[in-house]
């Protein structure tokens, strides 16, 4: 047994770890007597990738490319390949992944199972929107190949399906053309939510990528808005990526009452001072935290929660304001707070998170009951607004909120693999 934790580091749990490394042998390897769940880089924050006292099938050994057509941009690879490794190879031929989240240190299988989204959701949708087909191995040894046009029901259940429909072993993805690894970006400061929504709405048609950092400690909701477009500028040097690592877990969370307010004020003003247009490398713009290895350690030994919700646009303004008010009243706060509007499009997966509206993602140091009480207040705002919480981040949402937020649940359950179970599935579905 091996102690494994997810990215939030809320707890370390004993698991039997089985490394999958031969795609021809997965069907045999997952025929275990005990229930298991596929586990890639363990970058999801909550318990979607955990199965305490059970088996995890670690997919990082399934890290081979199968084919890549540099003329059409069609890539087939094993599910344990990292998004970073795909992009570092395909960029040389003028292709990148159409959708990536804020880290590229995740596996393709995890990106499908959580149907991850990025800064360009309004134009490109979710990761699953670009998957042409995938291979799923069930615990009874059967193999299901599915895509948007063949066995589309299996595909819709598996994209965003939290790994519960089988083990994804191969994925076919349509990449997108880029002329250079560069983005032309602009950074703007906003002083309140009105300004944020104005910037978000007016940027959607002309900017492919939009995202914002919000200062949830200051009243009113000031923040920094970032937007970017691919550019063919070619006269720049590739940045040398330098990795820093947080070498140990500090005894206390570095994000606390004393540090948060000065952190946020300093960050806001530094960024405000440096607003304007520039050219960024895609890795620096999309994955600013990837060079700070093990940054999750800064929340100390008790770890942290991430709370990411989405609410419909019609009530978005009020819901955001209400949530920010609750947070600032609670005295808790978040440094890595991200506010973004989603495009007006439905995701392919039955259990995919993105829906038309506005999403807010917040990190909170784990202070036990105090933090959970705040979440209950935020839950009631999300519930009332008709929103939902992102399963890839969640470690604590109540079952009724899950069921209200994911109306396709009953349909999804028909496709579950009976020998696959995770801490999240037991908590929210009961088995």
């Amino acid at each position, binding site marked *: *047994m*091996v102690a494994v934790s997810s990215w939030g580091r809320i707890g370390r749990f004993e698991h039997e*770890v*089985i*490394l999958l*490394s*031969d*795609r*021809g042998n997965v069907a045999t390897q997952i025929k275990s007597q005990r229930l298991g769940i596929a586990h890639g880089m363990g970058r999801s924050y909550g318990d979607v990738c955990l199965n305490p006292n059970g088996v995890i099938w*670690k997919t990082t*050994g399934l890290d*081979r*490319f*199968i*084919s*890549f057509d*540099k003329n059409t941009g069609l890539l087939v*690879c094993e599910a344990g390949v990292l998004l970073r490794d795909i992009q570092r*190879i395909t960029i040389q031929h003028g292709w990148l992944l159409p959708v990536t989240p804020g880290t590229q240190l995740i596996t393709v299988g995890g990106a499908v199972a959580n149907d991850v989204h990025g800064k360009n959701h309004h134009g490109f949708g979710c990761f699953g929107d670009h998957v042409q087909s995938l291979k799923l191995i069930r615990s009874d040894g059967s193999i299901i190949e599915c895509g948007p046009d063949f066995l589309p029901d299996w595909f819709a259940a598996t994209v965003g399906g939290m790994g519960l429909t089988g083990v994804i072993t191969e994925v076919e993805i349509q990449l997108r053309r880029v002329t250079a690894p560069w983005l032309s970006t602009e950074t703007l400061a906003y002083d309140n939510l009105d300004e944020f929504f104005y910037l978000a709405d007016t940027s959607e048609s002309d900017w492919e990528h939009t995202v914002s950092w919000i200062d949830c400690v200051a009243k009113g909701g000031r923040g920094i808005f970032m937007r970017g477009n691919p550019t063919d500028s070619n006269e720049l040097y590739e940045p040398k990526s330098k990795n820093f690592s947080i070498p140990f877990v500090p005894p206390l969370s570095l994000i606390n009452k004393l540090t948060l307010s000065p952190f946020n004020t300093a960050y806001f003003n530094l960024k405000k001072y440096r607003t304007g247009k520039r050219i960024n490398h895609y890795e620096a713009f999309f994955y600013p935290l990837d060079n700070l290895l093990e940054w999750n350690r800064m929340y100390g030994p008790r770890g942290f929660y991430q709370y990411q919700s989405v609410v419909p646009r019609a009530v978005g303004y009020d819901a955001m304001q209400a949530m920010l008010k609750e947070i600032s009243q609670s005295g808790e706060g978040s440094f890595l707070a991200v506010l973004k509007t989603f495009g007006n499009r439905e995701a392919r997966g039955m259990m995919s998170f993105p829906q038309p509206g506005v999403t807010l993602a917040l990190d909170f140091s784990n202070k036990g009951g105090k933090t959970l009480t705040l979440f209950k207040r935020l839950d009631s705002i999300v519930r009332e607004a008709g929103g939902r919480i992102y399963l890839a981040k969640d470690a604590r949402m109540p079952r009724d909120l899950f069921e209200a937020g994911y109306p396709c649940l009953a349909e999804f359950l028909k496709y579950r693999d009976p020998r696959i179970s995770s801490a999240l599935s037991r908590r929210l579905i009961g088995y």
Partner: protein
Amino acid sequence: MQNTKKRIVIIGATSAIAEHCARLWVKDTHVELILVGRNAQKTENVATDLRVRNPQTLISVIKADFINALAIQQCVDSIVAGGVVDTVLIAHGSLPDQTLCEQDLSAVNEALQVNGISPVLFAEAFAGTMQKANLGTLAIIGSVAGDRGRKSNYIYGSAKGLVTRYTQGLQHRLANTAVKVVLIKPGPTETPMTSHLKQQGGLAPVEVVAKIIVEGINTAKPVIYAPAKWALIMMVIRHLPRFVFNKLNI
């Protein structure tokens, strides 16, 4: 046009360490890789991956028997018939279950064959032609386990000890030639071979080990510990007096 690519032969190409070495080698376009494996499909999967990583490299796959001496000789003959070999990496192995070995002699036999005799036969088959060509680097993966027998894995350790002693002899034989012989001793590495081990935290990432090996082969160091800290750890373990060593539960 003459083939100016550097020819690299990898025996046991589906081993995780070998596969990651190959990924580093294909970053350079001027290589030709010959992948030798027991399982044709698995070896082909590795080759396909490498071709995507760099479409300009030349990669071929050979399925081989790793036990039969005659088959090994024929396999190596067919490779060297295709041209001068610049680098050979002999990487195969499998970690036996020590407890099982203590109950079943056939498990001992298999472990000694795969981890000890087979790598030596491959190396010996290449050594002669490399000596004649007076060119090339012959690298063999041993293990820190071969440095001193321990109760927890001495069957594996003795096979790797055989590889160590063999390599010493070969280094002595080829000392006056241009052929370099490199012995690589990885510590516990995160690979499918070790995935059942309990001490997951202490395992070195396979990418790190591969990088040390490829750099070590380039500089043709006679002995490479990967990661380097194992040189120090094993020096201590080798020199522990028996009355202390026998009290250790390792």
